């Protein structure tokens, strides 16, 4: 049973989204992060939807969609099927952040970072559940690959959401500029193959924060593994 759920919001990961600190963290800050994470967990009503499609290369059979770019091709090599998934933290969290922005901007920032950590956690859990199911049937599941990674066009957000009927199923829409709304949401495709898959190597290139990471921009790394 695939239930979208938050199991852990790691304070260190939250601080990574905040741009630091990652060492010598003041106790007061750590406490605030933990309290905010707890508040978020009790407010959030995460939702997810997923579907399995048969693949012909990078074309999803039974649909009008074919995925372009070399990176997704590499990712889906030897995959006979693909799982399309979408997850969202929901509109309640969005409103909580908007409210906090007026009364306590610092808390709003921490909430926003907690929310980013939370949606990743939800996706990790969903992926783990899917992997268990897939492996029980004797197959193997790749990592998740989202529009915007590598050369997979961001414009595919719209197609992913249409195929999954996310608007009706989980209240997830895509704006004109391909922003998922509610903001703390993720869409991705995972490949199902007959052969074991190595997970993507870690490092800046494969991190979803690559474009926006302030730590990387300041010339260093977070050394996350």
């Amino acid at each position, binding site marked *: 049973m695939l239930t979208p759920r938050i199991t852990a919001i790691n304070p260190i990961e939250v601080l990574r989204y905040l741009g630091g*600190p990652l060492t010598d963290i003041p106790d007061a*800050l750590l406490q605030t992060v933990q309290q905010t994470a707890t508040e978020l967990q009790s407010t959030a009503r995460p939702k997810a939807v997923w579907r399995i499609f048969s693949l012909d290369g990078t074309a999803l059979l039974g649909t009008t969609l074919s995925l372009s770019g070399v990176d997704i091709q590499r990712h889906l090599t030897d995959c006979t099927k693909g799982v399309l998934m979408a997850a969202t933290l929901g*509109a309640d969290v969005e409103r909580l952040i908007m409210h906090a922005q007026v009364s306590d*901007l610092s808390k709003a920032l921490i909430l926003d970072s907690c929310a980013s950590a939370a949606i990743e956690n939800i996706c990790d859990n969903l992926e783990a559940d899917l992997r268990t199911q897939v492996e029980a049937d004797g197959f193997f599941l790749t990592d998740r690959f989202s529009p915007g990674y590598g050369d997979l066009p961001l414009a595919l957000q719209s197609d992913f959401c249409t195929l999954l009927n996310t608007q009706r199923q989980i209240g997830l829409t895509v704006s004109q500029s391909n922003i998922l709304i509610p903001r703390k949401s993720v869409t991705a495709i995972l490949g199902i193959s007959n052969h074991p898959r190595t997970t993507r190597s870690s490092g800046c290139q494969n991190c979803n924060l690559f474009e*926006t990471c302030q730590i990387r921009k300041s010339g260093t790394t977070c050394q996350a593994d």
Partner: protein
Amino acid sequence: MNVRETIQSGYLFLDGAMGTQLQAAGLKLGERPELLCFTDPETVTAIHRSYIAAGSNVIYANTFQANGHKLSGTGYSVSKVVTKAIALARSAAEGTDTMVAFDCGPIGKLLEPLGTLRFDEAYDLYREMVTAAQEAGADLIVFETFTDLYDMKAAVLAAKEHTSLPILCTMSFEENRRTFTGCTVPAMALTLEGLGVDALGFNCSLGPEEIFPLAQELVQWTSLPIVIKPNAGLPDPATNLYTITPEEFARQLVPYTQLGIRILGGCCGTSPGFIRALRDQLGTIPPEAPTISKRHGVCSASQVVELNGVRVLGERINPTGKKRFQQALREHDLDYLLNQGIAQQDAGADILDVNVGLPGIDEPTMMADAVKAIQAVIPLPLQIDSTDPAAVEAGLRYYNGKAILNSVNGKQEILDTILPIVKKYGAAVVGLTMDETGLPQTAQQRVELAQRILTAAQGYGIPKEDVFIDCLTLTVSAQQEQARETLEAVHRVTHELGLHTMLGISNISFGLPERIRITESFLTQALYCGLDLPIVNPNQRQIMDAIACYRVLSGEDRDSAAYIHRFANAEPAAAPTSAPAKLDLETAVAKGLKSECALLTTQLLETKDPLEIINTLLIPALDLVGKRYESGEIFLPQLINSATASSEAFEVIKAHILENGSEQFSKGKIILATVQGDIHDIGKNIVKVILENYGYQVIDLGRDVPPEKVVETAVSENVSLIGLSALMTTTVPSMASTIQALHASGHPCKTLVGGAVLTPEYALEIGADYYAKDAKQSADIAKEVLG
């Protein structure tokens, strides 16, 4: 068959799913179902015919997402698709008395404030569809599968203002009785009934069994006919398939008849067999009409305030007599209003009064902006406080929910101007017991005026429970006997006329020492007389305490639970009247101590000049914090805390300057905006706080701001530094076009850009003058440009 007549007493059987039927007939995922009207009209007509044969009284045309947004790029216009789809349905229905509904789902883009679709843009998209539908001969309009009440309001207004067709509205809820956007069942009922729809209810998401508790709730809040169009149960999580049988589906709908529900159909996963089973099962059951007592109240989209007890109206969003507030309105400083609103919410207000009337400002626009800003962050229902018909219309139109309009009075011209607006938007209305002859002198006069207002309101179709009477609180030190007249009037209006009463109580004590004692006493007496909508300052704890006490004595606070919670653990919480001895302003800023900053500043103003405090204490303190941030000693949350603490100091200084009538201090104006298409604004708001604390006046245009608006504001406010923010690579082009537009306008100014995806190289490429890597750097740049 006349829809409006039929739904008053008989069954109306709708049809079942179209989408899943089309998929069964071969429609691929990703293909537009509506276009099948052109590529495979026979299949569409066949599905319609099968539902008619199964016994549907109404078939929904294949137009669910035939809107301008979804059809763009297909080569088909809205008018063409709608006309064709309705023609197909009409031809299928020929020779029968089955009616054809124009079926309209939500646009597919989320509305403001969470999304980028403006209310007026949504309205236009719905208007385009409904006018085509009426022209094409639809018998009625159905808005279904909506999850956002604001979206539904735009749709219903478009239909009401441009067609004369009956309107059925159904929304999709989750099992927790809320929609994805947090709308509740009573909020839907109160708002849509107020807008004048013909029937409302639920469709999709859930099966008949899951929807039943929602229906049980709905019948308590509306007298309108109710529509139920469930899915074929919940799909199997593993296969995504619906497994319920038509007979089981129909059996699960039987209990609804006991609630008097007569408009029924099926949604996803259903087929003609389901409708046939429904007709068979219900054919033997005569439609019931149980008497269910109705609850009433006002609401936002997510919160209903039921009017069955004392409900506190917060009065603080009002510029009368408040120089700082007036300044905020002139500067379009919505944050100031929001802070007032949140403080009142935290203090226990149930409803917020919103008054933005000030000579010299555009009240209708300000009212619309204020309503939109407040309802984005505060879930309390609002009371629109204005006598300007344009501002009244603006406030009620853009409000999401059922509002209160404050106010009308006994003057016929006012009643005839304002009451129609109140009726159109389904608001409740406050009537002041006075007229063109002046203020009433006796209780009797007040009661007569109340009756006159009630009669006029009912004449416009406004129900009695939505008419609130304000018997006018006059200043006791000027007209002592009027206090008793008002109290007697409240008693009589409550018990003889059976109406809710409202009073602004603060006025009673004007001019007397220890005002709060008289105010509190008057309040308690008025509550006993029947007052249930007191307008107060919720920040006055003594007043809120008095209300808490009354609620125990009246029985409203069952088992005194709320009272005990309020007082049992109360420590003598004395607000610090002076800051700890050794603390100075610089340290208070560095540590982010908000109230200490305010207190210290108040003390300092006794001996120092405001400018001196800003330039020699506050700004250097912030500079120091900024340096420590740059060197990595402290981080963003701490920087923000210091800035918000410094803001408290600034508020004290601003108020002080206003009291003394001096010129407000400003180092110059800066515009900040998140560019068109982008909705990320935390970074921009951090920059705003920092810049304000360096003494700049920030004009915050918000998010998703079109280039034209930036240029317009730059020119009209004569601003020479414009800051633009964008978080996505896809919205950086909007940043480039905004900069281009500014250059093209010829207005002399510099641009400053920031946002996580940007780099100095990118900034140069798009023609920006400055790139700020963080909030601190923005302040440095502002200093360089403006001084």
